[in-house]
């Protein structure tokens, strides 16, 4: 279950950057092409925060849309999934956005 280990990484990352302060909320940005299921992260969050400075914190997840750059025409286009379909007809593209997993901000007291 990669969401559990990823959620534990989220907690570790936040703990490392909040200097022991109590964290009451965490905001994440998850790319729609990242292969990470936000509901599964939510499911794991309470478990992963137990006994840490994040215990009881809320979690807010926003999405990062997928974007591809066409290797044929050079234009960028929306990629709702991993199958590239450039409006020019090409299916040869690289993903330029939508794979991220970022802790954007936290609330501390």
């Amino acid at each position: 279950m990669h969401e559990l280990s990823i959620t534990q990484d989220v907690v570790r990352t936040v703990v490392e950057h909040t200097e022991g302060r109590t964290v009451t909320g965490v905001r994440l940005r998850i790319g729609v092409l990242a292969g990470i299921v936000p509901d599964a992260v939510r499911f794991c969050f309470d478990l992963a925060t137990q006994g840490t400075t994040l215990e009881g914190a809320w979690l807010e997840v926003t999405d990062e849309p997928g974007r591809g750059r066409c290797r044929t025409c050079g234009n960028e286009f929306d990629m709702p999934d991993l199958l590239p379909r450039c409006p020019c007809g090409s299916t040869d593209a690289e993903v330029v956005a939508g794979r991220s997993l970022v802790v954007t901000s936290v609330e501390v007291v």
Partner: protein
Amino acid sequence: MCDTCGCGATDVRVVDPGSGAVTHTHDGVTHTHQSGEAHSHDGGLTVHTHEATPVDVAQPDETHEHPRTGSTTVELELDVLGKNDALAAETRAWLAARDLVAVNLMSSPGSGKTTLLERTIREATDRPVVVVEGDQETLLDAERIRAAGARAVQVNTGAGCHLDAEMFSAALDSLAPEPGSLVMVENVGNLVCPALFDLGERARVVVISVTEGDDKPLKYPHMFSAADLVVLNKIDLLPYVDFDVHALMRHARALRPGVRVLPVSARTGEGLGAWYGWLAGLHS
């Protein structure tokens, strides 16, 4: 949550391909509606639609603000997988400095990865082969590899469903491969999770067998979009199964344009010359 692998079945959708109707559960409500159709879970107080994306990513959070009374917002913008990726980059440099080439083999369980490795160890003799075996439990695969004549370590991930950069680094410490070796990694049999974790390998190989179905790439796009090579195994069984090799190639290349697909049989040896040639090419 899925009882088999623990993955997030809270977001599972059941889609009727005939009508396009979607049945799924969220916010504690199970319901069925047409894809894209506006609907409500709270008697009409709020109405929303689901686009035809794999997950309802931000839907529960777009409608409300969390209280901030008495707290301070700290902007972080921290890449969570950055730690894994940084360790993988260290491993990649460590391997390169010792003329070691690591290949990450990924597939569903039962595609023939271990058989392919056993044969590779016996027949690709131009340089030493060492193996890192990943499985949730047992030492069975590492024992098979040792019996084939290569040194191996087994990483048992327990509940985990993939290898990560830390596990691979620890396995390399334990193996201490001699310079010039080929380090083969047999990842946990799983077409989902291993795709997300860079180990520091030179190349990623996805093994698929003809008993699995030629539409696998479309069903598991993350795995195939990460593939540097696709090995199509068990081609000796092609006469007995409904498997379209060209459809598999088309689907794999839709996700990874131009990816090479090598049809082989690890049992009969057919096509393995091309596999050994591809491996040898990684060192040049």
